[in-house]
């Protein structure tokens, strides 16, 4: 069984420390929820795990099955089985969804594949793509569109979940923090996720949405405050936060609360 282990992780963005010693362990098959007020560092953790170049790991490490991935390029992390579902997936004009997916699948499925080498056979790719798109209720025509260009919020979310379904990572991080999601999009993510998660996948759901957790009840809920995980509990903790907000958390952790910065640090 695979293990994702984060030890004493410190991350800075443009020289400003955001994460100040995060510890987290996720086993394959487990669902974890990460909650916390805006600016507490949740997205920073997601981006740092995936290897965004603007997020500098200054201390600590991230390991998958004992391999430290904190110095690796994003594509190498993906090949080791890490996946980040983006909150705001970027638009890539002129790049057809199907082309992109076939390249992504070829690389992730065959970690030995070198650049320019053969992609997975078209027949196999099409079959799998068709199945997954059908399951997600996506129009096949969408695979011919340009990646995220002109996609509605719901279509973008479906596209992220489609990638999750095709790449079958060992560990999926879902960065869904903001309130920008309409209820349809939440439904897409939560249903898709509950279908895909299972003994083969460890999941970290970063969310404000109670509803996302109803479908995918976490075994563990973590609360982040000022760049640290200050509390870990079960699903009841998520429910409590949903009902009462972060007031009681701040009261229980006055030192961390004092460190909170007033302005929100958005992902770059």
């Amino acid at each position, binding site marked *: 069984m695979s293990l994702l282990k984060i030890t004493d992780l410190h991350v800075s963005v443009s020289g400003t420390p955001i994460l100040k010693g995060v510890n987290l362990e996720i086993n394959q098959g487990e669902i974890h929820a990460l909650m916390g007020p805006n600016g507490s560092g949740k997205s920073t953790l997601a981006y740092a795990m*995936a290897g965004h*170049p*603007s997020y500098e790991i200054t201390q600590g490490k991230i390991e998958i099955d004992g391999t430290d991935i904190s110095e690796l390029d*994003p594509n190498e992390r993906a*090949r080791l089985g890490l996946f980040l579902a983006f909150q705001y997936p970027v638009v*890539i004009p002129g790049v057809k969804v199907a082309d992109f997916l076939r390249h992504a699948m070829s690389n992730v499925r065959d970690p030995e594949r070198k650049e320019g080498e053969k992609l997975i056979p078209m027949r196999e*790719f099409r079959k799998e793509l068709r199945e997954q798109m059908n399951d997600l209720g996506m129009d096949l025509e969408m695979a*011919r569109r340009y990646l995220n260009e002109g996609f509605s919020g719901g279509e973008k979310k479906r596209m992220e979940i489609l*990638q999750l379904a095709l790449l079958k990572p060992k560990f999926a991080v879902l960065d869904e923090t903001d309130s920008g999601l309409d209820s349809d999009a939440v439904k897409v993510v939560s249903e898709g996720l509950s279908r895909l998660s299972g003994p083969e996948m460890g999941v970290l759901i970063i969310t404000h949405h109670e509803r996302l957790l109803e479908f995918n009840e976490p075994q563990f809920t973590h609360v982040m405050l000022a760049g640290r995980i200050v509390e870990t509990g079960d699903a009841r903790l998520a429910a409590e936060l949903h009902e009462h907000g972060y007031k009681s958390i701040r009261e229980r952790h006055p030192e961390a609360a004092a460190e909170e910065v007033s302005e929100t640090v958005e992902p770059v």
Partner: protein
Amino acid sequence: MATRLDTNSENESVDIGEYQYGFHDPTDKYVFTGKKGLNAEIVAQISEMKNEPAWMREFRLKSFEIFEQKPTPEWGGNLSELNYQDIHYFVRASEGQGRSWDEVPDDIRKTYDRLGIPEAEKKFLSGVKAQYESEVVYGSLQEDLAKQGVIFTDTDSALRDHPELLKEYFGTIIPPDDNKYAALNSAVWSGGSFVYVPPGVHIEFPLQAYFRINSENMGQFERTLVIVDEGASCHYVEGCTAPTYSSESLHSAVVEIIVKKGGRFRYTTIQNWSNNVYNLVTKRAFAYEDSLMEWVDGNLGSKLTMKYPAIYLMGEGARGETLSIAFAGKGQHQDAGAKMVHCAPNTSSRIISKSISKDGGRSSYRGLVKVDPKADRCKSNVVCDALLLDPESRSDTYPYIEIEDNDVAIEHEASVSKIGEEQLFYLMSRGLTEAEASSMIVTGFIEPLVKELPMEYAVEMNRLIELQMEGSIG
């Protein structure tokens, strides 16, 4: 019903290397190699070797005078190192023109085999002209088109066989005094294509011309004239390559197009010169009533390209479109753009220009939209997008707009983007390498142009871009 999913072809592996057309053939078997340098004597000699009528000889000599009088342009790119006396203006590589590839000398035929022309001809072309150095060495046209009165020949032969057409149109769209390089071409022109499509004739598959420079210090000055008569339609495709030498070559073409009432013509260029070629080309079309003229213009390679395909919308309801793409690599300057001149009411034009600069390369969009006082209710839309792949590269936009009419709708949009860090990160987080990801972003950037190309050319264009992208990031 299953939807077809488009993805890249199965053949993904590309032989990545340097400029792949940089090879050259031996030149010792050439029939004639003119002396380097330029003067009235050499101009007259070219005319003499071609047994031209007196009017053409006069036209050349007059043009040479104009060339000498005109100063070298100081705008655009740096032309100060171009030495006109260090160039061969006329080189005859073979005796006569082949009608089958067997008649083309072995060395030259092998070159075209390597470039894939005979194969393409069989598959998807209505006719082919292959110009090697100064003259066309191979020509073909499908028989049924010839029977319908279509003429597709090299311009030297056209002067001999269709003097009345040449006399009527030659130099009327681009007169020698238009600019220094039009004058130069008018003086020393050789080869090129002549196309005449009779009224109402539609040519389904493209006609193709292929221009190849082989010698060092070579000047190629092809002259192309296309007449699409009333209600006729045609697509013409042009490709260009040259070997890599340490010293410069010059390519200075003149292309004149006439699209008559209700005609449609598309001129597609994929130029991929080696990066020591000065590419100074004048291209202009006159589009008459209710006609459609389109330039699809791809510029890769060369040391300096200055090229602004123009459309004069001469008749009411005429439409003009230019789609242009430039790729500027190390040590290269692509000064490219388009001109649209609205001379009649209800005319419309569109310019889409895309440029990519990498490794310190420089690209400029230089464009003109001009509206005459008579051109009521005309519309024009210009979109320029520049993509910079690194901080050393440069992109400029010089849009000129001259409007002399009140009742017009003109739009201009320009954008410059760096290759997005967020785009790279997104693709890489899905397992793509940095090179794959950036290549995919660039390919996507030029997709609007590539999808206008005939399929084989689209594949070729993507392959060329992949080659240009090799080692560009990281």
